[in-house]
C-alpha cells in the first residue's frame, strides 16, 4: 500500500514539474518577441507602425487635460480636425476619461485613449514600458520649429536604440510675479541703479532680498518676496543654477544623483538667505496656498510660480480693486496693468545675496514640456499621427496659446504669442530650464527633496545653538544626504 502511495506522489510530482515547464501557453505572439539591442533601427520600427496609410471611417479617442476642455479649446480643436479629415471618415472625440489615466494597465485591455496629452515625465514613463509609440518626428511639420532641448524631453533609449515618443506642445517653468503698484514711489531713483527702467529687485535676487528686508522693516505685517521652500519643483532651480542636476547623462542615469553636484550648496544658501526675510510660513505650504490672496491684499510683493495660474492672480487682484470701489472692467484692467509676470532674477556668482560686487549668473529652474503621444494600443496609428500633426500645427498652437495662455514650444508660435512666451522659449534654448527627467525614477525625488528643503527653511528659524546648516559645507552635506536618500529609494531593491 505504501509503495502505491509513493508511486502516486511521484507521478503527481512529475505532472506538476511537466506543467511548470510548459511555458506561457496563453501568449499570443504576433511579432518577434523581445528584441536584442541592435535588432532594428528606430526608423524601421516607426515605419512598420506608421505606414502612411490613413485608416478610414474610424473614431479616435483623444485625452486632453481638464483645463483645455473647460476653456473650450478642445472642442475647437476636434471640430477643426474632424472637418479637415471628414473625407476620410476620421472622427476625433473626447476620450472622456480621467486625465490621470493608467495606460500601462488599462491600455492592453483597450480602455486607454488613442492620443494623449500629458507632461513629458508622465509620457516617458509609459515609453519605458513601450506603452506609447515611437514617433517619426522628422516627418512632422513642427519638427524644425521645436528646439532640440524640447525634443530631448521625449527621447528614450530603449533596447539600445534612441526613440522620440512625444511631440512638445508647450513649456512650463516658474516665472516671477510681482505687484507693480507696490513698488516704492522712489523706485526709479533708489531701485534702478542701471537706469534701464526696470526695478532692480525684479532683475537681481540680491536686490529682491534687500527690498524684502526693507519692506518688512517698514511694516512688520508686510513682506517682499515670499515662497514656500518645501516645493521641490521651485526650490531646486536655485541648486541647478550653481551646477546641480537631477540625474546624470542628460537626466537618464539614475545611478548618478546630482542634487549636490557642482556648487549646489550656494543655491541652498541663497534659499536660506531668502527665507530669512520671510516668516515661518515658508517652512510648509502655507505661502503657496495663500499667495493669491496675499499678493492681492498687498501683504506679499512678489512670488514665483508657473504661468498657468496667471488668471487666478488676476481674479484675486480684481476682487481687491473692486473692494476698493472700482467696477469690474476697471478693476480687471488695473489688475492686468499692475500684476507683472516676468523671468527669474539673476543670482550672484558667489551665492552671497549681500555681495553687491559679485558677478551675476542666470537663474535656472525646473520645468516641464507638455505634449502629445500616441498609445501603443491604438488600432489606428496613422490617423492618430495625423491628429498629432494637426494639433501641433502653427494655427492650432496659436489658438491654444490665445485661449489658454500657454507658452508654445514652437519657435514661430512663441515669437507671435508675446513676451512671456518668448522669454520662456529663450530660457529653454539657453538651457536655463531644466526639464523634468523622463524616467520613472523621477517620482522618487520629491519626498526626499521636500524633506531637505523643509529642513533648510526650518533651520533659519531654529535657535542659533540648534542650527544645522551653519555654513556651506553643512549645506553640501545636507544635499549629499538627500541625494543618497533618493539613490536608496530608487536602487535599494532594484
Amino acid at each position: 500500500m505504501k509503495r502505491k502511495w509513493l508511486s502516486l506522489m511521484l507521478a503527481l510530482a512529475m505532472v506538476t514539474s511537466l506543467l511548470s515547464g510548459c511555458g506561457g501557453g496563453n501568449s499570443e505572439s504576433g511579432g518577434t518577441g523581445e528584441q536584442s539591442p541592435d535588432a532594428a533601427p528606430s526608423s524601421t520600427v516607426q515605419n512598420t507602425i506608421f505606414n502612411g496609410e490613413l485608416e478610414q471611417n474610424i473614431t479616435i479617442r483623444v485625452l486632453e487635460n481638464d483645463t483645455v476642455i473647460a476653456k473650450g479649446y478642445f472642442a475647437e480643436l476636434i471640430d477643426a480636425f474632424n472637418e479637415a479629415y471628414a473625407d476620410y471618415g476620421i472622427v476625433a472625440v473626447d476620450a472622456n476619461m480621467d486625465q490621470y489615466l493608467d495606460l500601462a494597465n488599462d491600455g492592453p485591455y483597450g480602455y486607454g485613449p488613442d492620443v494623449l496629452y500629458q507632461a513629458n515625465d508622465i509620457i516617458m514613463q509609459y515609453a519605458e514600458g513601450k506603452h506609447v509609440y515611437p514617433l517619426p518626428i522628422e516627418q512632422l511639420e513642427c519638427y524644425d520649429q521645436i528646439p532640440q532641448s524640447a525634443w530631448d524631453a521625449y527621447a528614450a533609449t530603449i533596447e539600445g536604440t534612441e526613440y522620440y515618443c512625444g511631440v512638445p506642445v508647450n513649456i512650463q517653468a516658474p516665472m516671477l510675479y510681482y505687484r507693480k503698484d507696490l513698488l516704492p514711489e522712489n523706485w526709479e531713483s533708489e531701485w534702478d541703479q542701471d537706469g534701464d527702467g526696470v526695478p532692480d529687485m525684479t532683475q537681481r535676487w540680491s536686490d529682491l532680498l534687500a527690498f524684502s528686508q526693507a519692506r518688512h522693516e517698514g511694516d512688520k505685517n508686510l513682506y517682499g518676496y515670499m515662497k514656500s521652500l518645501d516645493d521641490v519643483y521651485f526650490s531646486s532651480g536655485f541648486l541647478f543654477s550653481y551646477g546641480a542636476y537631477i540625474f546624470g547623462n542628460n537626466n537618464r542615469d539614475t545611478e548618478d544623483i546630482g542634487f549636490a553636484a557642482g556648487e549646489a550648496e550656494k543655491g541652498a544658501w541663497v534659499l536660506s538667505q531668502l527665507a530669512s526675510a520671510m516668516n515661518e510660513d515658508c517652512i510648509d505650504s502655507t505661502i503657496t496656498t495663500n499667495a493669491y490672496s496675499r499678493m492681492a491684499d498687498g501683504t506679499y510683493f512678489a512670488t514665483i510660480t508657473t504661468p498657468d495660474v496667471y488668471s487666478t492672480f488676476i481674479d484675486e487682484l480684481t476682487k481687491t480693486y473692486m473692494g476698493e470701489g472700482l467696477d469690474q472692467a476697471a478693476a480687471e484692467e488695473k489688475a492686468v496693468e499692475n500684476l507683472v509676470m516676468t523671468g527669474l532674477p539673476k543670482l550672484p556668482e558667489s551665492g552671497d545675496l549681500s555681495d553687491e560686487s559679485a558677478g551675476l549668473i542666470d537663474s535656472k529652474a525646473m520645468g516641464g514640456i507638455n505634449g502629445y503621444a500616441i498609445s501603443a494600443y491604438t488600432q489606428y496609428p496613422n490617423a492618430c499621427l495625423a491628429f498629432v500633426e494637426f494639433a501641433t500645427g502653427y494655427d492650432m498652437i496659436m489658438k491654444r496659446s490665445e485661449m489658454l495662455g500657454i507658452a508654445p514650444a514652437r519657435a514661430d508660435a512663441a515669437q507671435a504669442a508675446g513676451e512671456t512666451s518668448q522669454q520662456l522659449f529663450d530660457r529653454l534654448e539657453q538651457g536655463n530650464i531644466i526639464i523634468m527627467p523622463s524616467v520613472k525614477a523621477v517620482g522618487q525625488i520629491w519626498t526626499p527633496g521636500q524633506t531637505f528643503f523643509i529642513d533648510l527653511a526650518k533651520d533659519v528659524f531654529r535657535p542659533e545653538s540648534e542650527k544645522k546648516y551653519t555654513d556651506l559645507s553643512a549645506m553640501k552635506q545636507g544635499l549629499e544626504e538627500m541625494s543618497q536618500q533618493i539613490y536608496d529609494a530608487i536602487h535599494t531593491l532594484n
Partner: protein
Amino acid sequence: MEKWNGFCEAAKNSSWKVKLSAVVMGGGQLLYGCWQKGLVYLLVELSVLYYFITRGISDLVGFFTLGTQKADPWTGTAGDNSVVMLLMGIFAWIVIAVFLCIYVSNLKDAYAIERRVKAGEQPISFKAELAQLLDRKFYITALALPVLGVCVFHILPIVFMILIAFTNYGGSIVPPELVDWVGFQNFAQLTTLSRFAPTFFRILGWNVVWAVLSTGLNYFAGLGLALLLNKDCVRGKAFWRLFPILAYAIPGFITLLGFKFMFSYGGPINQIIRDLGGTAIGFLDLDAKWSARLIGLFVNCWISVPSIMLLATGHLSNRDMTIYESARIDGANRWHQFKSLTLPYMIFTTTPVILSQFVGNFNNFGIFYFLRGGLYMDNYFLASDTDLLINWLYNLSIDNNYYSIGAAISLVIFLITSTISLAVYVRSAAFREEDTFQ
C-alpha cells in the same frame, strides 16, 4: 482517522457502480436511476474539464511560471502579464478546491444511494433532495452564494496579496516585465537589509505604543463622556450628545485636513500665538516628533471618541442598577463602584469592540498621512518618525513601487494584529464566560 477508515471501508465494500462515479461523476447515480442528479454531477465534471482544457491548465502553469514571454506593444507581441497570471492561477486553484468538494459529495452520494438500495429502500428522489435544500439543508442554499462570493472577492485578493510577498513584483519589475517567485527573500530583506531592518523595528515599536495608547485613550475618554452624560444632574443630555456626534458625522479626512491647517504655520493657532507676541510653533513640522505624535493621539481621539461614547451609552443603560444600590449600602464610593462594577461590566460587553479598535488603530493610515505626510527622516528608510507600519507600507508600495515588500509588511501586520487579537480575545471574560452576564 475515523473518516479515513470509513472511506477505506466504503472503497472496499462499494460496488463497481459507485466506483464508476469516481471516474465519471454522476455515473453511479445514473445507474441507480437518479438520472437528474447524475446529470448535474456529470455536467459539473464536464464544465470543469472544459474549463481546464480551454484555460485552467495554462492558468495553473502560469501560476508556477508567472509568464515566459514579455509583452511588446510595438511589435504586437501580446506577451504574459505576470500579475494577471498569478490571479488567474489562484482562481484555478479555487476551482480545483470547489471541484474536489463536489467530487467528494458525488462519491458520498453514490455510496449513500447504494446503501439505501441494498437496504431495500428507494433512492431519495431529486425533487425530495431539492425540497431538503429548502428545509433541512437550507443552510447550504443560503450559504452557497455568499461562500462563492467570499471565495472570489475575499479569499482570492487576500491569497493574491499574500503570494505577492513571495515574488519580486515592484520597482522596475512591473508588467510588461515578467515577475518571478523569490521565496522568503522579501521577509529576509525586511529583517536583515541594513536599510530596512532598523526602520522596520523603529516603526514597529512606535506602532505598538500608538495602538495601545490610542485604543486606551479613546476607550476611556468615550466611556468617561458617556458616564458624564448619563448622570442625572446633567440637563439637556440630547443637546450635549449632539456635539460629539457632529464630530463623528464629518468625514475623517476632512477633520484631519482641518486639524492640519489649524496646527500649520499659517493656521489660526499660530496666528493667535503671533498676535500675542510669540513665535510660531512648528507643531507638525520636521522637528516635531513628539508634539506631532501627541497631536495625532488627540486628533484620533476627537474622531473615535464619539463612537465609543454612543456604544457605552447603550451598554450603560442596560446595567442592573440594584447592584449599585447594594454597593452603596455596603459603603462603596463612586470610584469603587466604577472600578468593581462599571468597568468589569463594560470590559466584558465591549471586548470585541476594544479589539477591533486596537486593530483599527494599529492600521490607522489616515492620521499621520494627512497630518504629517511627505517627510522622509534621517535614520528612517522612506519613512518619518510618526509613520506607522501601514504608512510605511504605503510609502514603499505606492510612492516607490516596492509592491512585494509592501505585501510582506502587510503580512507581518496581519500576523501581529491577529495574534494579539486572538490571544486577548481567547483569554477575555467575554469569550470564556459568555453566559455569565445576563
